[in-house]
């Protein structure tokens, strides 16, 4: 059976009906490793199975804002795509059009759920203020890093940084200013780290970083550069850190002990 759609003849012999693809994708959603990956998988399967030129999904909700995805992770480019992304109502658009409106709606809804799940998972593992990892996910990562270190000899440095006089700053300038400082530290940390490094906010004004390698000067250098960068971002020079570092696997064989070593050095540094 052939179907004529918008002047193009789309053969669907040897193809499953789009509704069946939607059903298969719905079954896949629960075990999809990521929502973003699920969305691209859905768009790409749609494009491949039905020989489409393009597929664009636009999601709009209070929690996500307007979010557009193009099959193949391609950039938004071209009149047809830009028009859909910028001006069309939320929904799933394909070139040529092959889906019945209710099927397109089901697939778009499925993808919106996938994105929402991703965002929820992200929010559960990240600090809302700085965008860095939160304490719980950092602890998990540190435990895994420690296991790798002990088992395979991978050497890394744990750096703990505590913002000096943060309470005083909060009291003097107010909590919004304190939040702005923490956000600046988060942005600064991201700009200095390398691929594979991990940074987290592990307390009110305490940050932790896992760095590849065991040069303790790296941690102290990072704190110094971070002080300067955050100070510049905020337009003042009062941002400074106390730093404690510990290296694995030389100084500890488990995550708790490594944290203790770094913590002790941090408090020694604060006492100076």
């Amino acid at each position, binding site marked *: 059976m052939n179907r004529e759609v918008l002047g193009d003849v789309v053969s669907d012999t040897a193809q499953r009906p789009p509704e069946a693809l939607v059903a298969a994708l719905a079954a896949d959603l629960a075990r999809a490793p*990521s929502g973003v*990956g699920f969305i691209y998988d859905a768009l790409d399967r749609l494009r491949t199975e039905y020989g489409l030129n393009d597929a664009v999904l636009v999601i709009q909700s209070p929690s996500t804002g307007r979010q*557009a995805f193009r099959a193949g992770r391609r950039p*938004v480019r071209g009149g047809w795509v*830009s028009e859909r992304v*910028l001006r069309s109502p939320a929904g799933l658009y394909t070139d040529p059009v092959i889906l019945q409106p209710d099927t397109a709606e089901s697939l778009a809804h499925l993808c919106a759920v996938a994105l929402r799940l991703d965002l929820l998972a992200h929010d559960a593992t990240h600090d809302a203020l700085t965008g860095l990892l939160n304490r719980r996910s950092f602890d998990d990562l540190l435990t895994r890093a420690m296991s790798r270190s002990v088992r395979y000899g991978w050497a890394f440095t744990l750096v703990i940084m505590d913002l000096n006089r943060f309470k005083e700053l909060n009291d003097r300038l107010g909590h919004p200013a304190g939040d702005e400082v923490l956000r600046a530290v988060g*942005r600064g940390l*991201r700009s200095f780290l390398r691929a594979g490094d991990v940074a987290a906010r592990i307390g009110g004004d305490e940050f932790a970083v896992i760095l590849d390698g065991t040069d303790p000067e790296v941690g102290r250098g990072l704190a110094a550069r971070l002080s300067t960068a955050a100070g510049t971002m905020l337009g003042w020079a009062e941002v400074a850190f106390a730093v404690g570092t510990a290296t694995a696997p030389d100084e500890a064989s488990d995550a708790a002990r490594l944290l203790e070593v770094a913590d002790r050095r941090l408090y020694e540094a604060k006492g100076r």
Partner: protein
Amino acid sequence: MPDDPVSPTIQAEFDRLELELRKLPDVIAVGFEGPAVDSPVTDDAILTIHVMVGDPEVHATVEAQALDLARLHLARPLRILVAPDGEIGEAEAAERDGSQPSPLSRVRLVGVGLVEAGRGVEVTLGHGERRAVGRGGSGSPSGAAEATLTALRQLGWSVPFDVGASVRLAVGTTGAVLVYLRGEDGDRLGVSVGETAETAAVKATLQALNRWLDDPPRRPVALRPTTPAG
């Protein structure tokens, strides 16, 4: 991004990066362009991450944050192109009516060769359908860098930089060139490898200027989309 399947680890890293990019303020869409994501990392294989924002006001903030995020997730040469809503529409309108080349299209290196019995170097650059040739002295990579700036000016860019210095570097088994450009807005550095020192110098010069060339106010007037008066 290619359609070929990539490893789950790389896929997961791209997923995480994309989600974080989409959480930046006013980001509407993210796209990837360039070498296959699991291809060997080389200096020439630059991955371009397109980030579309709804509000042009957040352009600079999003660009800086997107670059930091991308560097954390992907250990490979990359750059960020942020396109505000209106800009993409205008550029595409210009492309569609064929009246002018897209300002978003890139300057590309067409060729580098020695001329005048080896005493000079000639650099040919392309932008859309246009070609421009610049010449400089041979013997040091600076000549190729100067020829690149000349060719760019012929393409319509007012490039406020001069070649301050160039240095040949040994990188592994191959050679690289570092080009240092002096300008009123500050100095810029570019490093690149190439089949010859001259080619590397041209690429390093373009690399040093890349983000500067992408900045809309700095595009040559002739290549900007026209807007109705009044």
